């Protein structure tokens, strides 16, 4: 034993074997750091700034004010009183009175029980520190000099709060029922919409995957249509259908569409394609042997459904449920248009910031909204990671057998859903062409004269197209390159998993919250990126970040299908990785790249929530114009603009389809031998 250790001590230390980093590795890690840095600057830092803003309170500091009071003849005897002391003696203001918003004001006459505005008594007042502020009328006094005021002017004095830090905003939030009731409202409509949407989408997907119904292609197309419009468009359609002048308002039996009913119906419309896609994927894969076994065990179809079909699709159902929940709770446009007096969190943020300029309270509501959004997102990810392959090598794909009776029922069911979707869109288009609903039903293009309305006119439509293009091009480049680096670089495990985490984060952050945090972060003169505030650049960055996760996942899925051997081969041929990336990876993954770009394009056209705080008068957008025109009461032009977005997105889809076919025929020829 001892000899061995001596041996070890005497032996010279061997060379430290570490894999050498090639120039390629360094380049890839460097690029990965750059994209990670991008995500930090556009996501992590703004969110941190917002969180810290929610703890920024405003408080009237009584110790900052001093008074002198004269006798009836106007002579001061030199006694100095501080507001703090007077308040302790008289108890004029409680602690909660002193904690206020940035716009808070408190009068001072309460400190002087003998005060009368007619009395000849004179007052002097000053700030004890340079930070103190008080108003005489509406003139701000910031200095520490004494200001002499007669009684009648003294009653116009208001103390102004100074900035402090603390939990005051949160206490204020939870002690205002009007505000925290919204939590309950938001959860309620999200749960109801989720149950309804998932149920409807399940049967729709079931019909398309498990029956021999006709017109499947058409139904698939119709089901995806709502993705092409902003979420507030169904709200506008519902006003025309069920409002007080609605075409079929009798169907509501006197209930008002403005409120939870409207929000739920609209939410079902705009979340339907998302739920349908996920559930359809889950139902598409199934093993026919399980159904054969069920038949041979003489199980009833009903029992088979509950013991084979539902368990097979359970992950899809759960995932769809959480995605829908997340979409509804973070949506802003729809409840803004049709919510009436039913307050929800996302609209509260808007009201606090735009209506009352209370940015701190906006930040508090944002923090509250992030919690359910992150929870829903986290559970969804957990469920997805549990999903295991349902198809083994021995599986036999399930094939539906024609059954005239059930096929007919499914056809009727799908037609009803299709009617609902097409109907709402048709109503919008119809409303846009009517001159003055409901008094003058003649057709006219008057509602397309956007330049005469609020919202930025036709300019905002072209801005939107510009934004969508830029987002598609820049976003696809950044996202795909980032995903490539994460998937294909060697080693550097910690760095890669941190990057993965950052890439997943945007999905959990509601658009309103992202937009608001951008105000706090970028609209700060000391921020070096301040110059992009109010430009198209900030809109592009915000939109790319907002839709980063889904694009990233699409890219990763495509890249995972590519064998790692490509990298090894190129390394052994001494080819730089970037060459491989450009010559092999991108062409092979072209379908995914095109999918990402159309996804970003369509979403940039329809997004409202993330950009509503960030557009400037020069960069108004079509989706925002829909919101603002509806807000001003120009509902028909709002519908017209919403339909313009629909047609543009539909056209983009068609171009995408044709382009994909052409390009894919050339680049994907290797796939078919």
């Amino acid at each position, binding site marked *: 034993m001892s000899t061995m250790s001596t041996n070890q001590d005497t032996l010279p230390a061997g060379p430290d074997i570490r894999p050498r980093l090639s120039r390629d590795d360094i380049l890839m890690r460097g690029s990965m750091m750059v994209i990670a840095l991008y995500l930090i600057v556009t996501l992590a830092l703004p969110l941190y700034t917002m969180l810290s803003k929610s703890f920024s309170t405003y408080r009237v500091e009584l110790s900052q004010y001093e008074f002198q009071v004269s006798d009836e003849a106007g002579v001061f005897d030199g006694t100095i009183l501080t507001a703090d002391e007077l308040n302790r003696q008289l108890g004029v203001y409680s602690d909660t009175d002193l904690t*206020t*918003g940035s*716009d*808070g*004001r408190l009068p001072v006459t309460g400190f002087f029980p003998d005060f009368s505005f007619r009395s000849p008594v004179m007052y002097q007042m000053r700030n004890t520190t340079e930070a103190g502020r008080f*108003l005489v*009328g*509406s*003139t*701000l006094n*910031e200095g520490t000099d004494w200001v002499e005021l007669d009684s009648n002017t003294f009653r*116009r004095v*208001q103390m*102004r709060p100074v900035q402090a830090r603390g939990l005051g905003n949160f206490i204020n939030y939870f002690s*205002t*029922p*009007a505000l925290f*009731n919204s939590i309950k*409202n938001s959860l309620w409509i999200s749960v109801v919409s989720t149950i309804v949407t998932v149920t409807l989408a399940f049967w729709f997907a079931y019909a398309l995957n498990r029956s021999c119904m006709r017109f499947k292609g058409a139904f698939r197309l119709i089901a995806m249509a709502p993705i092409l419009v902003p979420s507030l468009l169904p709200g506008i359609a519902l*006003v025309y259908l069920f*409002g*007080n*002048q609605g075409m079929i308002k009798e169907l509501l039996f006197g209930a*008002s569409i*403005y*409120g939870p009913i409207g929000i739920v119906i609209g939410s079902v419309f705009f979340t339907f394609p998302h739920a349908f896609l996920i559930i359809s994927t889950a139902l598409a894969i199934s093993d026919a042997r399980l159904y054969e076994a069920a038949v041979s065990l003489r199980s009833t179809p009903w029992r088979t459904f509950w013991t084979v079909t539902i368990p097979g699709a359970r992950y899809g159902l759960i995932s769809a449920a959480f995605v829908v929940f997340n979409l509804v709770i973070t949506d802003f446009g729809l409840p*803004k248009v049709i919510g*009436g*007096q*039913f*307050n929800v969190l996302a609209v509260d943020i808007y*009201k606090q*910031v*735009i*209506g*009352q*300029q209370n*940015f701190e309270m906006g930040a508090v509501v944002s923090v509250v909204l992030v919690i359910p959004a992150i929870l829903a997102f986290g559970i969804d990810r957990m469920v997805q990671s549990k999903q295991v392959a349902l198809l083994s090598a021995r599986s036999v794909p399930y094939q539906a057998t024609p059954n005239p009776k059930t096929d007919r029922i499914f056809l009727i069911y799908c037609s009803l859903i299709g009617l609902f979707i097409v109907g709402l869109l048709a109503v919008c288009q119809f409303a846009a062409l009517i001159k*003055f*609903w*409901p*008094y*003058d039903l003649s057709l006219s293009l008057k509602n397309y004269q956007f*330049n*005469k*309305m*609020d919202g930025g*006119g036709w300019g905002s439509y072209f801005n939107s197209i510009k934004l969508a293009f830029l987002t598609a091009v820049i976003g696809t480049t950044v996202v795909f390159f980032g995903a490539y680096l994460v998937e294909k670089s060697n080693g550097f495990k910690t760095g890669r998993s941190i990057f993965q985490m950052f890439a997943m984060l945007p999905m959990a952050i509601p658009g309103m919250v992202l937009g608001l945090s951008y*105000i706090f972060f970028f*609209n700060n*003169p000391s921020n070096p990126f301040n110059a992009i505030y109010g430009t198209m650049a900030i809109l592009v960055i915000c939109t790319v970040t907002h839709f980063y996760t889904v694009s990233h996942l699409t890219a990763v899925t495509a890249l995972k299908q590519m064998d790692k051997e490509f990298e090894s081969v190129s390394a052994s041929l001494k080819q730089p990785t970037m060459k491989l990336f450009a010559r092999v990876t991108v062409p092979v993954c072209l379908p995914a790249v095109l999918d990402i770009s159309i996804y970003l394009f369509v979403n940039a056209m329809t997004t409202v929530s993330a950009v509503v705080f960030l557009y*400037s*008068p020069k960069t108004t957008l079509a989706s925002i114009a829909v919101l*603002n025109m509806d*807000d*001003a*009461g*120009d*509902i028909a032009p709002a519908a017209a603009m919403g339909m313009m977005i629909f047609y543009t997105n539909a056209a983009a889809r068609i171009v995408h389809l044709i382009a994909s076919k052409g390009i894919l025929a050339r680049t994907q020829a290797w796939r078919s031998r």
Partner: protein
Amino acid sequence: MKHTTSFLAALAVGALTATVAASETELTVYTAVEAEDLARYAETFNQSNPDIKINWVRDSTGIITAKLLAERDNPQADVIWGLAATSLLLLKSEGMLEPYAPAGVDKLDAKFVDGDNPPAWVGMDAWVASVCYNTVEAEKAGLKPPTSWKDLTDPMYKDQVIMPNPNSSGTGFLDVSSWLQMFGEEGGWEYMDALHENIARYTHSGSKPCKLAAAGEIPIGISFAFRGAKSKADGAPLEIIVPSEGVGWDMEATAIVAGTANLEAAQKLVDFTVTKEANEMYNTGYAVVAYPGVAKPVEHFPEGLLDAMINNDFEYAANNRAAILKEWQSRYDGKSEAK
């Protein structure tokens, strides 16, 4: 000869610099004036001041105010032309306005000028609350037209009235603050309690109630006269009612932003905004303007509007804004949840 060339060159250079200086003054002007009026305003101004170019930044009152407040430490605007006086008071109390007495300000109605000397802002035109009443829908519902604010609390109007939410709308706030001033603090809240029973819903914007009334979504919309007149001109079956107790109002006003780099040009612009010419220009849309004797009746405007305008205490409105909104929210925003 040499002498002359250099003289000519100097002249040319002088002329060149002069034209450069003349065409190079650009003013960033924040405004909430309706988009369709802006081009006309700039054109009229440039007739007398061709050397100053206006770059408009336009948005709704709430958003422009939020923008200005957010830029408090790094102002981007030179001049504010056409923003609610209550918003300007808010900015004034933050020390964001440059006091300036424009040439000829003494000719304006004193009601339209800030009380300080020199004034921090000067008014342009007034923006008066009114009730838009859809005669067709009201007849269908069997309603009688109201003549006063108090009438609107009659149970016959239950769920037939829409008004703007004062938390998001300047028009909504001027209604609430006028009721508090007219009926007293206690009476005002009592009035709103009763009115709340008849309100179908509160909208975010101030023009929407009138547009909804015009479209027949609701028989009665509490809004402002200007909007009502426009909808009526579009052919809506509206009657614009001026309640007998008096109506709240706010004015559009002008101010220089403290810290502007173009003070001289900014002052020229503000000088222009108080001229008779400018007031005649405001009169195309607004029946009440700051320059006495200028206003001609505007088509479809209700009669007796000028006399009905209350003696509005803007300072009261601005200084109590936060407290009023908080009280309003706890009374009505919270209560409506139960529905």
